[in-house]
């Protein structure tokens, strides 16, 4: 197996790309579900419950199920990543929105804002840091799950790790495992810094 820098870089980029796409699709679904479930606590509980069940299924088992349904390929991996991204984003969006002090909504109403305007200009910005935390958790998890993607014929660093294990070739294993680890750490650090920036900006308003 090739462990040259261009090849490893390409696999790293593929890995990040698939993780991001899967996370964003799941995040969009999670976000939409959370907004739908606002002020409907029973619905919220039910949705979060379902998402928690999905979350508990071990990655390789979930991917194996999806393989039976969708066959091999990047698409199958992305479906799995999206499913795992739903819970963190949905839960954080829901809690973020619920956690907005009603005082602000009252102020917006008093200023003559419509419900939609209040949502977009008051609640969402205030809840944003919490939502971003959910997104961060989802993305970092995706990077991890994407390494198993090799078993459903997907691209990414998992290719190197798996091949390295078959050959018991340390160089190949590390060429896959180290970038994967670094990628996860990097995303975690960048998004945490972004969160802090935004919550400082939000509280400064």
């Amino acid at each position, binding site marked *: 197996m*090739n462990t040259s820098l261009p090849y490893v870089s390409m696999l790293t980029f593929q890995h990040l790309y698939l993780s991001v*796409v899967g996370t964003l699709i799941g995040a969009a679904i999670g976000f939409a579900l959370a907004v739908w479930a606002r002020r409907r606590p029973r619905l919220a509980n039910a949705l979060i419950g379902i998402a928690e069940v999905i979350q508990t299924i071990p990655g390789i088992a979930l991917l194996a199920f999806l393989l039976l349904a969708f066959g091999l390929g990047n698409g199958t991996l992305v479906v799995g990543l999206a499913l795992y991204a739903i819970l963190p984003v949905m839960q954080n969006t829901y809690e973020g929105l619920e956690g907005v002090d009603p005082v602000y909504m009252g102020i917006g109403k008093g200023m003559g804002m419509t419900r939609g305007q209040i949502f977009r200009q008051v609640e969402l910005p205030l809840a944003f840091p919490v939502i971003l935390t959910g997104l961060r958790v989802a993305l970092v998890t995706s990077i991890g799950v994407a390494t198993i993607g090799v078993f459903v014929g997907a*691209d990414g660093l998992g290719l190197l790790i798996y*091949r390295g294990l*078959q*050959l018991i070739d340390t160089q190949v294993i590390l060429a896959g495992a180290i970038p994967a680890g670094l990628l996860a750490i990097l995303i975690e650090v960048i998004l945490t810094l972004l969160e802090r920036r935004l919550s400082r900006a939000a509280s400064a308003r």
Partner: protein
Amino acid sequence: MTRKLTVLFLTSIVLLAILSACGLQPPGSSSTSSAGSSSSSNSPIVVGSKSFTENILIGNMMYDLLKANLKGVTVQNKSNLGGTMVPWNAIQSGQLDMYCEYTGTGLVDILKQPVVSNPDAAYQAVKDAYPTKFKIDWMQPLGFNDTYAIAVPASVAKQYNLKTISDLSSVASKLTFGAEPEYFSRPDGYPGLLKTYGLKFSGKKELNVGLKYQAVAGGQIQVIDVFSTDGNLIKYNLTVLDDDKHFFPPYYAAPIVREATLKAHPEVSAILNKMAGKLDNTSMQKLNYQVDVEHKSADDVAKQFLIAQGLLSA
């Protein structure tokens, strides 16, 4: 400031989701050739391979030859997919167009027919049955017979004076058997072996191919199944036991291709048959050795072989 970010955030989610729905092809994906996007009018031809070096090498060769000789078609190489059942299921569902199969596996494992010892008869049997049963055709054999074999460390062979598999019957209770998971569920594998030779091992272990050789070298297991063209056979001092009861069928390697693919691209047959008879046991084992022991890249080894054979321009 945060409002702008919010809008940007939501917009990029929507945009990326739409983009990704247009075909999940990360830029520079190793599995596509440079010829255009995969969602074009020409559906790609997908080559697959099982999860061991030899099959990956042949898959790479098939990929290289098709890429070089097929005009205007995208070729993808999905290598290292898993045990036989993974590419087999994928080719039946149309997710793969072809991969390299072995006549014995086709005969005993897939068609579930009894062992036929004559190599030509075995090839003919699968060549006749696959089109009618599965709408899949066998190309011409590549030349080598990569049969399952049973091996023990040379020291163990000496200790118990083992030359044939039958010799194992008296000492099997003292020995542990190891093989990759697939071996334990095949009729031409562990169950059949025990039955035909009347063997009873003290224990068995399921190990992946790479770990198998290390475990036998470390003394954790004493008897393993091997592929007769394994590169690792050269490196580890193992004695291959003679299959005196002719339990194993011949396993001649040849590409199998979906008839639908051949219909859409009739040239595929001639391109793949360029490899017919080009690889005997010794040369296949040498190539395997380069990857498994010398840790050369399977992509390079496959390419170099084709170039040396004059089948690919450098």
